[in-house]
């Protein structure tokens, strides 16, 4: 009998408690770590994301169960299947996340998580309302096709999400070397949320930072380069609807005004791409940063 529980439901009180504790820490040590309107927007995005997830779960689940009928292997519910599923789901997450930064259609959804200029535990809950439209769920279809039960995948996704909550903080510096080498940590993920050119599009990992080391996207946090958070063109707005949909509107405007041969480029090429080179992609900014600093990023 497949499990039907969602671990995230049980984690929510813990999320709230930890946000509370971090706020008390911020009051004493870093009052700028939180801003009330920013916190409200982040938490409202989180709540909206939950609602959107419930609304789209039926369609995604139906697709997964249809593919599951044609599975390659009978994996079942053995203990090692849970471990394998968790690791492979984390690998799938790495690629969802990487595409989420490199394809504007997917970025239009994921940008919501990055649009705060703060990096705190409430930012962790700043989640998209349009994840299903962005099609990230397709990246988990290989797991279903292999024979991992959709309910097992859902539980692993839930635990992965729970793990990703705690490292959205500036309250923790670096952790022991062995832990930093294997797992995603506050330090690694600060890099991911930073807009400093050297940090752009790095550290996509969910739980295991080894994926970034393996696929060449790892960047350690540098003492001489304190992270600044947010997106390259900061929103400058606490309007919830604008936060949720601004990049989709941006895509629509660009597609509308672009020459015919370039329209699709604004959908599938990286954020910042433009047909007349009037904007900067993260690659271009990073290259300029490296040229300006005339050195390679230190390991």
């Amino acid at each position, binding site marked *: 009998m497949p499990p039907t529980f969602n671990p995230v439901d049980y984690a929510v009180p813990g999320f709230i408690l930890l946000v509370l504790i971090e706020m008390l820490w911020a009051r004493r040590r870093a009052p700028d770590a939180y801003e*009330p309107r920013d916190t409200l927007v982040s938490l409202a995005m989180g709540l909206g994301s939950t609602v959107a997830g419930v609304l789209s779960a039926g369609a995604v689940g139906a697709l997964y169960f249809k593919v599951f009928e044609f599975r390659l292997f009978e994996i079942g519910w053995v203990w090692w299947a849970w471990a394998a599923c968790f690791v492979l789901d984390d690998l799938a997450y790495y690629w969802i996340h990487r595409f989420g930064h490199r394809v504007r259609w997917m970025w239009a959804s994921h940008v919501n998580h990055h649009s705060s200029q703060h990096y705190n535990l409430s930012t962790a809950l700043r989640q998209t309302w349009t994840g299903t439209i962005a099609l990230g769920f397709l990246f988990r279809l290989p797991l279903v096709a292999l024979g991992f039960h959709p309910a097992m995948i859902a539980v692993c996704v839930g635990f992965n999400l729970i793990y990703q909550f705690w490292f959205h903080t500036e309250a923790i510096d670096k952790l022991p070397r062995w832990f930093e080498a294997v797992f995603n940590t506050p330090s690694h993920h600060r890099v991911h949320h930073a807009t400093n050119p050297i940090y752009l599009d790095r550290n996509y990992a969910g739980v295991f930072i080894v994926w970034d080391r393996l696929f060449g996207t790892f960047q350690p946090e540098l003492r001489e380069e304190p992270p600044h958070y947010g997106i390259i063109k900061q929103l400058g707005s606490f309007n919830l609807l604008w936060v949720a949909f601004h990049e989709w509107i941006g895509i629509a405007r660009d597609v509308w005004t672009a020459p015919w041969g370039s329209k699709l480029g604004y959908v599938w090429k990286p954020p910042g791409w433009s047909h007349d080179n009037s904007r900067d992609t993260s690659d271009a900014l990073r290259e300029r940063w490296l040229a300006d600093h005339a050195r390679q990023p230190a390991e």
Partner: protein
Amino acid sequence: MVGEMIQLGASLVAILALAGLARWLALGNDVRITSEDHARSLAAEAVYGFSASDLALDRAGIGALLRDDQGRILLLRRHGAHFAGRLLDSHAFARLDRNFLTIGSGEKTFGHITLDLGDKAQVWASSLRHLES
């Protein structure tokens, strides 16, 4: 269904309580631009490579206008506990009232800001009128 609605309502209450707590704890300082160097640093952060050759600070430090050698003009304005910037083009608007210059980027959600630029206000208003797209 009733259970889900109760859960949704409780979540909403928790969200408002946490945001209210952040306000009660006075989190999110009253940030200001403290010097020309500070403004330059914020500008370089807002637009990578922007190197200001001329600038005007609001007297209270809530915003600034900066120009680089390429003639680009950047508006910095306070946003919560941080600053956000926009390069201004022909869509920008400016309204001068003695030492006060009200500026918008033309982007509705970015809003507009009134800066007290002292005797520099008139010169910058003139510059903004000549912006190209």
